């Protein structure tokens, strides 16, 4: 019955021009990138993952690893996708502050994820929320078809770039290969996690790595339920769900999984993932 209901919901959403997760794409997202992302989301809506452990479910905050649970989790944290061309500095407005100024970068923790000049993906909404919070103000963001009030890290505005489909993709495998979808889905969940948490943990900022490949860089997770931590958990299941994948796809996924696993600091603590909200 649940399956029928979920299928009907998918059918309605797709029929309405949306996608299975209900994420809205800004006009700045190139057509080919949108098509690949929508394919990724469709694959998430039909993924067959092995049953997880109670600890894994609790870490992420899902009842199970069914497609409906995962897509629901994602849609609560990622609501809008904007493209690399989207100039947020031109489209942000101050709601409550005497001086009219553009937000400044408050910390390296939330600067855009870029590889050279190419953006991979970053949580713009969470970044703007934190900047406003730090400066005692709030912002609105003008997207193509709507204005979004940035009153919580859960505003869910994510910026993507070409790097998501090139630098972040497994070499030697088509962009639309199943493993590359799984790879990107891991990134979507990572960035979506930056929409969570409260207080000093708001946004789930990354910690400075004390040693290893990323020594002295803010590329590690201090939380047992932070962005890298949940990405590692999901990639473990995604890897096992990559049946029929080539050895190149599997080794690529494994390299990513191992890389993120190295970023988990020992003895992490679970942070309260409930998002905070700013009152105007």
């Amino acid at each position, binding site marked *: 019955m649940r399956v029928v209901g979920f299928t009907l919901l998918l059918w309605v959403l797709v029929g309405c021009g949306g996608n299975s997760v209900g994420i809205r794409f800004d006009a700045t997202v190139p057509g080919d990138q949108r098509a690949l992302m929508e394919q990724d989301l469709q694959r998430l809506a039909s993924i067959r993952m092995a049953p997880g452990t109670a600890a894994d479910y609790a870490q992420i905050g899902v009842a199970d690893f069914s497609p409906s649970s995962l897509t629901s989790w994602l849609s609560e944290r990622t609501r809008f996708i904007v493209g690399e061309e989207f100039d947020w500095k031109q489209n942000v407005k101050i709601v409550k502050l005497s001086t009219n100024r553009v937000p400044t970068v408050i910390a*390296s*923790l939330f*600067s*855009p*994820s*870029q*590889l*050279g000049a190419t953006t*991979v*993906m*970053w949580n713009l909404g969470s970044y703007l929320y934190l900047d406003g919070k730090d400066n005692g103000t709030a912002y609105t963001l003008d997207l193509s078809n709507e204005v979004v009030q940035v009153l919580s890290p859960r505003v869910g505005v994510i910026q993507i770039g070409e790097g998501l489909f*090139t*630098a*972040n*993709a*497994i*070499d*030697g*495998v088509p962009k639309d290969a199943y493993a590359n979808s799984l790879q990107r889905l891991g*990134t979507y969940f*990572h960035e979506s996690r930056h929409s969570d948490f409260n207080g000093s943990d708001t946004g789930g900022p*990354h910690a400075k790595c004390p040693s*290893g*490949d*990323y020594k002295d*860089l*803010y*590329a590690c997770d201090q939380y047992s339920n932070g962005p890298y931590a949940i990405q590692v958990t999901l990639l*473990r299941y995604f*890897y*096992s769900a990559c049946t029929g994948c*080539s*050895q*190149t*796809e*599997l*080794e*690529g996924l*494994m*390299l*990513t*999984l*191992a*890389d*993120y*696993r*190295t970023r988990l600091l020992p003895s992490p603590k679970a942070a309260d993932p409930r998002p905070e909200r700013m009152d105007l």
Partner: protein
Amino acid sequence: MNFERRLYFSIGLVMVLLVLFSCTIRQYSLDEQNGEPGEALAQNEERLPLPPIQRAGRRTSPTLDSQIDAPGPQGPFSEFQKVTAETLASLPKVEDLRGRTDAEVHHSPPELMAVSPSLGRIAQTLREAPELIPQGIEFYDACARRDDILTAVRVLCLRNLNYWTRQMPDVMQLEANDYPEDLWKIVESLPPVTQ
């Protein structure tokens, strides 16, 4: 009947002697050409450039060397050896990440993705050609021991090394202490290798 049996026996004996004689001549000519037996590979192709490493507890199957040395330079062994040598030389280094910003390493570096096809090819070859597994083990061992390459690659190599040495314990028995404990912890947290 006795005469016929003796005739067949004589013909058989002559044939066996002929085969033995031709084998001896062939071996002699190979030794003349290559010097000492087992040096053919060294003269005809590059060996896998393994670093000088301790190999405590390592046992190499006596069939390994003969398997590597038997085919000519164009054989599957030398071809695979070329692939593993090139891959080993191209593995991304920790040094490559120096100077990167937080933003640039927020997601996995592209160098990691770039090496996937080579590692995938090696993994696929071992599944298709079991006779190359000893060479694959040698590659994974060398890779897992290198502390100048990205940890994720070393982890992948140790994971594969662990798998293949369990499949072929006669080739090599893994000494856990030969590899950093941190690597083992990560390997143990990953999904197992499957055939």
